[in-house]
């Protein structure tokens, strides 16, 4: 029998709320976190809206030793990990170092740190580039810094598959636990709202150019015009159900199923592989579509991609066959942070029996989705499907189940 893997701690940094309580209070009430970029002057760029995490002051949470060597995404990931460990009632100093692993995801690495050092390189010279540039920009740096700060010497790594990566990391964390690592820190936090990061995101051609925060990111709406990017995500503490039970931990829920696929070559005429990822996740969880109470959609906000997701969901669940929501309409798309944040939202939704809403959206009937819009919907919730897609063909799906 395979080991059941559960989530016992959450740490959240999101554009509409910093901290789990603040995030959930905002999300259940449909509070928008999207606005005009404030971290730099966006006026010369085609896209000007983003979901920025408000009120995060690294100096309030981290020793000065860590500040010269960390990008914003790493600082938020370290602090979210501290919060998640507290939430799980785990003191890493009390556990054997090799019993704790770390696996996060990253879509772009530490862009802002890298931008600052590259600016020094061309404006002042190579001797002005920080020695910490050697790792501070790197994809794996969040996993590394979390592991160093908390003395976690078990298996660790990073998954890079754009927005799908956050789910892939959680799935890999589950694998590590099944192979015998008792506690794994997983999830992901991304942040690259700086001019260099902005240009890179712009290049993919999927950002909206809308300047109205409430009319900009409209997945499954006839007026969809692309997405708003954001920063943040969630860190999850995962462990085997058995170890959680033994230490009397509070359990948010179980990571029950996972599936991932890669799309066929564009223009091949073959079916996109998202449906298959969903079916694999359901089969892995040993559930049928009828067992799923809510879907947290990838919600690309790009008509062609919304169409593909809606077709996959209706193929599996039937037309309007399951409530679908996209609370990321309040935060923007958080890249690798999105999947873990949706998992956290699903777990919090279970506790309250309430589906958080998709805001600002008028569902296009053609998609045949039962989209939960405008206000939260009360419903008994036992199982949720979380979907995430990454640029270039990555599809991932995770099934989460309520505790008990």
């Amino acid at each position: 029998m395979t080991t059941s893997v559960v989530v016992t701690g959450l740490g959240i940094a999101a554009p509409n709320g910093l901290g789990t309580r603040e995030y959930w209070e905002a999300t259940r009430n449909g509070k928008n976190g999207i606005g005009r970029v404030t971290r730099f002057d966006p006026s010369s760029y085609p896209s000007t809206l983003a979901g920025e995490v408000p009120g995060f002051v690294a100096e309030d949470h981290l020793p000065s030793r860590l500040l010269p060597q960390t990008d914003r995404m790493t600082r938020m990931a370290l602090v979210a990990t501290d919060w998640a460990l507290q939430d799980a009632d785990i003191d890493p100093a009390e556990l054997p170092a090799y019993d704790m692993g770390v696996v996060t995801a990253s879509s772009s690495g530490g862009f802002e740190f890298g931008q600052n050092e590259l600016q020094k390189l061309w404006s002042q010279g190579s001797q002005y580039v920080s020695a910490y540039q050697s790792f501070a920009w790197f994809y794996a740096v969040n996993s590394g810094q979390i592991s160093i700060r908390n003395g976690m010497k078990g298996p660790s790594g990073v998954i890079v598959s754009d927005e799908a990566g956050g789910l892939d990391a959680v799935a890999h964390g589950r694998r590590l636990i099944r192979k015998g690592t008792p506690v794994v820190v997983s999830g992901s936090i991304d942040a690259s709202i700086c001019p260099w990061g902005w240009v890179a995101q712009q290049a993919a051609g999927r950002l909206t150019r809308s300047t109205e925060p409430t009319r900009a990111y409209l997945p499954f709406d006839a007026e969809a015009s692309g997405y708003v990017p954001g920063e943040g995500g969630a860190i999850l503490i995962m462990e085997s159900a058995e170890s959680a039970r033994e230490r009397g931990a509070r359990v948010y829920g179980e990571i029950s199923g996972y599936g991932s696929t890669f799309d066929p070559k564009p223009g091949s005429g073959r079916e996109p592989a998202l449906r298959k990822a969903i079916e694999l996740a359901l089969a892995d969880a040993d559930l049928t579509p009828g067992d799923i109470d809510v879907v947290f959609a990838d919600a690309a906000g790009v008509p062609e991609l919304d169409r593909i997701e809606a077709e996959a969901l209706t193929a599996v669940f039937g037309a309007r066959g399951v409530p679908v929501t996209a609370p990321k309409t309040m935060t923007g798309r958080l890249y690798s942070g999105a999947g873990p944040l949706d998992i956290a939202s699903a777990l919090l939704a279970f506790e309250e029996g309430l589906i958080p809403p998709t805001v600002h959206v008028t569902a296009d009937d053609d998609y045949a989705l039962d989209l939960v819009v405008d206000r939260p919907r009360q419903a008994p919730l036992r199982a949720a499907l979380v979907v995430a897609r990454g640029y270039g063909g990555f599809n991932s799906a995770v099934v989460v189940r309520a505790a008990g």
Partner: protein
Amino acid sequence: MSTAPFTLDDLRRVLLEAAGADEGVDLAGDILDVHFESLGYESLALLETGSRIEREYGVALDEDLLADAQTPRALIAAVNEALGTVQQAA
């Protein structure tokens, strides 16, 4: 170009700018002969510190010399040697 000797206070300031200070480490204390490792500074922190000293004081510090300087006293001596100033560490 500075001709005054490089002091412990100068080093404290550069260390803080380059690499910050660990929780539980008192840089203001008597650290002259404490190993950098015990102060929470690994090789990269010292590389960054050395690089900032080079920029600020307009000197070239030998890499081996930097690597061999395991305490503030040793690093201060190395900098003063490069500067051609008399060592007045504290």
